[in-house]
């Protein structure tokens, strides 16, 4: 190992040829903490457009192009609004670009994942996200400190991830379970009853073609691409701002990188290894 010395706030190293170079601890940390592009050996699912990490949290940003879906949707006249007794029917509706932000704690999917619409594919972090007019994409009131458009995963237990001992497969399994939950389980009024509202209910006035699921289905049959012209509700926030907001309500402050004081704390908190 090459000799490295820290004296005061200066880190210095000596090369095998005897040359010395030095920098401040802050400069060293800034260099070491630079954002790097890598997936940590994980083969990313199709459609993942961006990875973003801060502290222990990693967010995958996934985009699905516009398409027509066949959803399991609460039937009009269902005796229950959600849970036991709820009756469902199949509806065929078109969606615009569907953007899912999946938050992982280490390699485990968290319970705080969000969903949005867009009328164009994502190209930069500055692109604005739109609220998704979907049941079970919850609107909290107040929104401060909570997700903007929470994907209801209350019934998604750890068993839904399946047997997955490989940490690299665990993230894929978590994401697969999230997308199954979002797109293939029944849509109902649990957000209205538990969180306050869903973005489907909030969006019924944006355009008569999406005011009810029946009119949405009819319009989808006539021209599935009409969803790219609907004035979906604006979040007023860019993808970057929504990601930073997710870190904030998850309690991850700062820029997530090591500081000089973090180094000092790590040195003082280090416990000597027990002799073997």
């Amino acid at each position: 190992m090459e000799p490295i010395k820290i004296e005061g706030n200066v880190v210095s190293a000596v090369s095998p040829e005897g040359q010395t170079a030095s920098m401040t601890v802050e400069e060293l940390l800034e260099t070491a903490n630079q954002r790097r592009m890598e997936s940590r050996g994980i083969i990313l699912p199709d459609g993942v457009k961006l990875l973003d990490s801060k502290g222990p949290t990693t967010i995958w940003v996934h985009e699905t192009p516009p398409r027509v879906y066949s959803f399991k949707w609460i039937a009009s006249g269902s005796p229950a609004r959600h849970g036991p007794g709820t009756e469902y029917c199949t509806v065929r509706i078109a969606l615009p670009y569907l953007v899912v932000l999946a938050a992982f704690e280490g390699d485990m999917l968290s319970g705080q994942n969000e969903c949005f619409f867009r009328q164009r594919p994502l190209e930069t972090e500055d692109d604005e996200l739109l609220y998704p007019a979907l049941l079970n994409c919850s609107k909290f009131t107040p929104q401060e400190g909570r997700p903007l458009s929470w994907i209801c995963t209350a019934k998604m237990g750890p068993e839904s991830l399946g047997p997955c001992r490989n940490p690299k497969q665990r993230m894929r399994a978590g994401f697969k379970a999230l997308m199954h939950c979002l797109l293939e389980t029944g849509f109902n009024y649990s957000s209205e009853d538990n969180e306050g509202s869903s973005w489907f209910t909030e969006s019924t006035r944006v355009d008569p073609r999406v005011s009810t699921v029946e009119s949405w289905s009819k319009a989808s049959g006539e021209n599935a691409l009409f969803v790219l012209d609907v004035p979906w509700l604006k979040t007023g926030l860019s993808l970057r701002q929504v990601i930073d907001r997710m870190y904030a309500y998850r309690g991850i402050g700062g820029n997530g990188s090591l500081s000089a004081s973090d180094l000092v704390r790590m040195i003082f908190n280090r416990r000597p290894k027990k002799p073997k």
Partner: protein
Amino acid sequence: MLETVRPRHQETFDPGPGGQDDLFGSCATGGLVTVNHGLHTEPLPVGNMTVAEIRARYADRFDIDPQSRAQIDGHIVDDSTVVRPGQILMFVRHAGEKG
């Protein structure tokens, strides 16, 4: 002098090796179908095959749930349906509910 007319079909564009259009150009099954199951989405040269044939052929590669139902462009179809080039075939398993 006798002249012969070159048949038109010989003049149609035939992209050579390396051209992106040629990736599946020689495939006898025809055009591409977008096949989706869960995290997997791929344009595949399976035009004019039945849903059952595509399900069997890509069961492992796409991790297709045997319980899933096929949808073409959002319509639920049975496994004997022939999938046409340009269509989107999705395998979906409706199960459970949110909340």
